[in-house]
């Protein structure tokens, strides 16, 4: 429990706050030399930045609109497929990772370590690996998102199952339910609302992730953006930024709205 002794009677900041600020500043000062600010010539960087921002003051080119919209649709489709696969895969994996199901004692911790290692690497790294193995296209991107998403969602499912009252399981088991039936009828329904809410969040998360993946050759809007940047086509870039803002913003709002209704 953080006791925030602020505002203090004397009007000054409490001692803990000073410690925290000192730690922050110390860490910032220690890491500052690593940012290679010396290699950045401020005069030139300033000049380049102003020039660059000037380039951005163009009207979005409508000529590229059909292509960009197709790419955005591809991105959304990738995110959707990955989300569905994630939801399907995360239930069994999550149940395997839960400590109160009655697995051998070493199994849940093992599954947890595996999914936390999977989660540790961002989607992009997985996408690079899968692109190298499977070639360019949406499939490696979808696999990358599914792998990371399963790691995220399975942990949530496991946590939702672990807080289930043991009496629920006893009640179902008392009717003569088999091991699988106890899991399916006592534990899984309790994790369901958590699972649906997390699934909606995953869709939002995956649309963002999918728009990045084009950078490493997994298709979608990210590829369009990479090309526009490499070719210095600023009007195309502005169009892409606009489309991304509207689309991702819409998914953001949708996921907020749905989750607020689900958790109410």
């Amino acid at each position: 429990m953080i006791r925030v002794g602020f505002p203090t009677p004397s009007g000054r900041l409490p001692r803990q706050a000073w410690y925290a600020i000192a730690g922050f500043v110390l860490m910032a000062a220690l890491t500052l030399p690593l940012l290679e600010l010396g290699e950045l010539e401020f005069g030139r960087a300033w000049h380049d930045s102003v020039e660059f921002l000037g380039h951005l003051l163009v009207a979005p080119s409508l000529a590229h609109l059909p292509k960009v919209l197709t790419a955005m649709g591809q991105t959304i489709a990738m995110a959707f497929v990955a989300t569905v696969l994630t939801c399907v895969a995360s239930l069994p994996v999550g149940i395997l990772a839960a400590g109160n199901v009655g697995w051998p004692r070493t199994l849940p911790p093992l599954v947890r370590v595996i999914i936390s290692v999977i989660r540790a690497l961002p989607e992009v790294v997985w996408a690079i690996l899968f692109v190298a193995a499977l070639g360019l296209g949406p499939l490696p991107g979808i696999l990358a998102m599914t792998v990371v998403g399963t790691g995220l969602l399975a942990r949530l499912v496991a946590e939702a199952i672990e807080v289930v009252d043991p009496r629920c399981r006893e009640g179902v088991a008392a009717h003569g339910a088999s091991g699988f039936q106890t899991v399916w009828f006592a534990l899984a329904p309790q994790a369901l609302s958590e699972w649906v809410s997390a699934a909606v969040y995953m869709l939002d998360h995956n649309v963002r992730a999918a728009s990045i993946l084009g950078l490493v050759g997994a298709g979608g809007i990210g590829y369009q953006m990479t090309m526009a940047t490499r070719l210095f086509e600023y009007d195309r870039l502005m169009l892409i930024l606009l489309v991304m803002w509207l689309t991702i913003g819409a998914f953001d709002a949708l996921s907020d709205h749905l989750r607020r209704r689900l958790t109410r």
Partner: protein
Amino acid sequence: MMVTLPPKPRNLAPLAALAVGVGFVAAVRGLDLRFGDLLSCWPDLLDYAAEYTTPRLDGMADVPRLMAQTVAVAWWGTLLAMLLGAISGPLSSAALNPWPALRFLVRQGQGFLRALPDLLLTLVLVIALGLGPVPGVLAIGLHTGGFLGKFFGEALDAVDRGVYEGVAATGATRLQLLMLAGWPSVMREVIGYSLYVLDRNVRMACVLGIAGGGGIGVLLQESLRLFRYDRAAYLMVVIVLCLVAIDALSTWLRKRLS
């Protein structure tokens, strides 16, 4: 005796499942995905995976420095994000900002920053600032600043209005309201969200090098371009170990705080 039952609640689950199923099939068709390829090409996949089994670490003297640079990028990016959040959060909160037009503008701005993925933002900023960690810091800071602004604003809105009224009744100005009623009430959320963002930023900083944003990602990108999967495997082991260590540290910190 006639028993009148309450109306049966509508069960929308089958309808939702059907919609998801149809959407899934349409998306798979539209993207021309062939999951069968995964089964038919598994010998190739095993060959490919075998390349990762012998991590070699020649020419990797830069690893400690670049890993430290990764943490530096994440740290400074998080500082920038917290600064952006601390400024835009109160401006986007209905409890503290009485002007709806300004609130709307600030919220749209935050949404815009959230919508730009930091990896792609790095790619764009590299045009102006050149390769190196600085565009990475800016990209991470701007993107997560949009998130922190939204989180801080929502936390400030969730505070009991009585707290604000109590302080306002003493004749406090708007800034005093924020400093003496707003921030102290949401300190826990602010610390929690900031730690979460720092955690996420360290992960992201590991891959910013792919777009030219400095950090360990530079080496990873180089290794994969040169098909040096042995080096890439070693780098990934290093990255995972560092991330797991940082994860443990932040879990410990959070546990101490709550």
